[in-house]
């Protein structure tokens, strides 16, 4: 079966070398060591080639895997982070805020009358609209801890680390203006252009609190409030663990 081994060449060399070592030096034919060495050298060069090829394939796989990892985090329509990426970021920031005893803000941003926009203008212009709005929101988030993702449909979610109510409201106001200034025509909206509504939730995760989605739910409630109060505006909810902040306004 030795012939079937992929290392039959190497095994032969070892066997012949052992035979040489065991043989009486007078029995060793002249040039035997040299021939053995030549065979070894050939295999040594082969090994180097195999390593180079393996290194190339491994590099290629590593690059591909890295690229796929990046792609898996990006929303293909808007080019910003996707929902999967958001979930990871949300957990990370929540834990960080809890550890550092800092407040954290989450904003849910929804394009107003987007279904109507699609019906009026078509789905491809709808995609362009999503992409431009995503870009406008992104341009309002400048701090290192700021993060925005496409949450789903026409909804975006932003995370503002170490941010209180006032800070989150300033950012929301900027977002409202940035999107309106895109001046994307929307005859189905009373504003005549594409606008967004923003729901903000601010909370300070308590130290003993397990991770949950309270903040997201609160932001969603605030968003509904903004929607029901005329759209193109921002509303705030405070999460249940924010004792430092006053209770929500009526």
């Amino acid at each position, binding site marked *: 079966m030795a*012939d*079937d*081994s*992929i*290392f*039959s*060449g190497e095994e032969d060399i070892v066997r012949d070398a052992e035979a040489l070592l065991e043989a009486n030096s007078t029995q060793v034919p002249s040039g035997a060591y040299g021939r053995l060495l030549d065979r070894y050298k050939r295999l040594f*060069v*082969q090994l180097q*080639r*195999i390593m*180079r*090829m*393996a290194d*190339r*394939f491994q590099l*290629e796989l590593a690059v591909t895997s890295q690229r796929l990892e990046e792609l898996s985090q990006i929303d293909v329509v808007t080019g910003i982070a996707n929902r999967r990426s958001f979930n990871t970021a949300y957990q990370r920031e929540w834990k960080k805020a809890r550890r550092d005893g800092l407040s954290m803000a989450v904003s849910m941003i929804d394009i107003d009358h987007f279904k109507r926009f699609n019906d009026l203008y078509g789905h491809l212009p709808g995609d362009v609209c999503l992409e431009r709005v995503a870009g406008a929101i992104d341009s309002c988030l400048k701090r290192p801890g700021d993060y925005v993702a496409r949450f789903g449909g026409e909804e975006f979610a932003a995370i503002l680390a170490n941010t209180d109510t006032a800070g989150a409201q300033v950012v929301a106001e900027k977002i409202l203006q940035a999107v309106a200034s895109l001046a994307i025509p929307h005859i189905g909206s009373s504003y005549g252009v594409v606008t967004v509504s923003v729901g903000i939730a601010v909370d300070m995760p308590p130290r003993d609190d397990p991770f949950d989605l309270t903040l997201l739910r609160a932001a969603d409630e605030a968003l509904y409030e903004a929607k029901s109060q005329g759209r193109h505006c921002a509303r705030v909810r405070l999460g249940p663990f924010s004792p430092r902040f006053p209770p929500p306004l009526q």
Partner: protein
Amino acid sequence: MQPLILKGSKSTPSIHFDPASHVLRLQGQSYPENASKFYAPVFAWLREYLAQPEGTRVCVDVELAYFNSSSSKILMNFFEILEKTAANGTSVEVFWRYREDDETSLECGEEFKEDAPGLSFHLVPLTEE
């Protein structure tokens, strides 16, 4: 002598060795779980085929986009056997086919070519249709 025909799988290449036309073709990817075991019947066939005293022209056609280290060692052994055959007077032509934009496959072809100077070894780009 019967041709050797193995249907390819995700991890093993399709093999079509035809003793009538003297074309030995290997195509696909090669990272079998046990490369020695997978290629044992291939080498057995090859040895039997090459033992036949025919002064023919053997054409070896290889198109492997991806292979693991064990498979590259096996290819080295494969080309070594062919080199010996060529040294004994049989004409052996190897065609290493690689996708035009696949630099890795090209460089692997170059490694095999340099390792087997006794073979007439051609690197042939496959242009995309």
